């Protein structure tokens, strides 16, 4: 166990350094002079020089990289070009909204996929299963930039039930969380269906039936707990990507999270802010995956041996 722990944490370091390097090089990938792109070519030379100094672009590349890394260790991600505020503060202000949306969409997809998946497994290859399959196929091939407008047309425009965008009450989070959670719930539905169907045909279920346990208790007490193990794994793994996968959803619904901040910083050519978002999103994603890996290794001994060998 200790060997696995050490290896997993040691591997975390080069990947971390790599992602930071990618985030660092983003501004250097701009064709031409980044300062010209940000300020426009006709800006005053004095302004250009000031910005170049502020972004530390006047230093040689290796010095820039070292200042960048040492700044990071002090929690300094630089300053936003437009708001002049520290990037770290802006990012931290936006992050709670993203977490809130990710949690809401997990709740939605659980509420949506569990009943559907259970019904589909019980009535496999009959009409409830076919309806479920239709839903999961739709979820699989409907991109969220199409799903969101359709939801807005139905629930906001035609029915007038929910607001088109913005934040505030609980009604504001419903459409964004459906948009974000629909794709995931279609994966979950299919997983619950196949996993539960397998379990339902196991010997111990037949044993329980023979003993005279009623169908409902069999499902709830005997079958579901065992069928849910792979489902929960997927659910946990998806959470990390939900924290970042919300760029389009947040943009459409004007949700003030970090995904929308990415797009806003791109539109404003605010590269330090974009850099900060990239670092923050990938760091939290890696961190969640690290914790999950360690948790699984703790729960399931097979994993730590397999990975230890690799």
């Amino acid at each position, binding site marked *: 166990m200790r060997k696995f722990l050490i290896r997993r944490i040691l591997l975390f370091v080069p*990947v971390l350094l*790599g*992602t930071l390097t990618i985030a660092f090089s983003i501004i250097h990938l701009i064709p031409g002079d980044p300062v010209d792109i940000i300020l426009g070519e006709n800006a005053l030379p004095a302004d250009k020089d000031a910005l170049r100094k502020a972004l530390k672009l006047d230093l040689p590349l290796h010095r820039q990289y070292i200042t960048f890394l040492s700044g990071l260790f002090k929690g300094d991600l630089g300053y936003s070009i437009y708001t002049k505020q520290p990037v770290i503060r802006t990012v931290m202000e936006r992050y709670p909204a993203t977490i809130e949306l990710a949690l809401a969409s997990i709740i939605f997809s659980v509420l949506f996929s569990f009943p559907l998946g259970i019904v589909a497994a019980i009535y496999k290859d009959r009409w409830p299963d076919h309806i479920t399959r239709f839903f999961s196929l739709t979820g*699989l091939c409907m*991109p969220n*930039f199409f799903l969101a*407008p359709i939801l807005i047309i139905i629930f906001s425009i035609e029915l007038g039930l929910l607001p088109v965008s913005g934040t505030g009450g609980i009604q504001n989070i419903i459409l964004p969380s459906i948009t974000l959670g629909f794709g995931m719930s279609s994966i979950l539905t299919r997983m619950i269906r196949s996993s539960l169907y397998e379990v339902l045909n196991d010997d111990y279920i037949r044993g329980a039936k023979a003993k005279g346990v009623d169908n409902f208790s069999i499902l709830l007490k005997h079958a579901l707990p065992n069928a849910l193990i792979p489902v929960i794994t997927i659910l946990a793994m998806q959470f990390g990507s939900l924290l970042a996968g919300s*760029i389009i959803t947040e943009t459409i619904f004007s949700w003030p999270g970090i995904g929308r901040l990415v797009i806003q910083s791109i539109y404003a050519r605010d590269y330090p802010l974009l850099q900060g978002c990239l670092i923050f999103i990938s760091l939290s*994603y890696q961190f969640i995956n690290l914790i999950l890996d360690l948790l699984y290794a703790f729960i399931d001994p097979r994993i730590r041996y397999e990975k230890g060998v690799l």
Partner: protein
Amino acid sequence: MKKGFFNKKSNIFSLLIIFLFLCCSLFAPLISPHDPYEIHLDSSLRGPSRSFPCGQDNLGRDVLSRLIHGSRVSMTVSIATVSVSLIIGILIGSIAGYFSGWADELIMRLIDILLAFPGILLAIALSSVLGPSLKNIVIALSAIGWTGYARITRAQFLSIRERDFVIAAKSSGASAGRIIIKHILPNALSPLLVEASFGMAGAVVAEGALSFLGLGIQPPYPSWGSMLGEGRDYLLIASHLTIFPGIAIMAIVLAFNFIGDGLRDLMDIRETK
């Protein structure tokens, strides 16, 4: 052999859809009923009618013609992205899988680094920095896309290189390049083909997302994603601007997913036989 690829209705149907969109993109100027750039301000945002079956957009341009021309973008981007990613992925994956050791370790860490940016975040950042153009979309999407193919190639190589025919080739003095190209690669292709089919669907969606956000194809050139993006402003009065491009994307994504599933079933049958 159980059911073949062509015995399944959904596979035939998907092939038909892909063929249809391919024809649309190849012969767009011949098929489209109107000029996709022709502006009719007097009839802007009008719904479907006899001469404009999918309605007209905010400048009165024919939505159907723009959809047909937009298929060129989707097809070009997805074919180019998948081809570039496949080539890079196979190349790097074979090196990692065949030589193992430090080369493998290095390549796997590089893939880990790229995958540490979830979803299309890196593609969005890259294309925003590189500037919007067809070429840059393909670069941005391939920069991440190759990782999947590399992992599959590597896994295939790890299992195939221990097989007898490879050991036989090695002991008869074949060079590494020859063993990789002539012996291992042909046996490693099937899962890559399945993945490529899903990759086509993914590329269509990713291009749509970039164009939707205004980071992909620029107006006035039509792309399904940018059409959806423009339609967002007119949801209240002209929902046809959203519905038709959305259906086009869904149809092609569904088709590529079905083909991927169909191919996977086909390969599984062969492997277990």
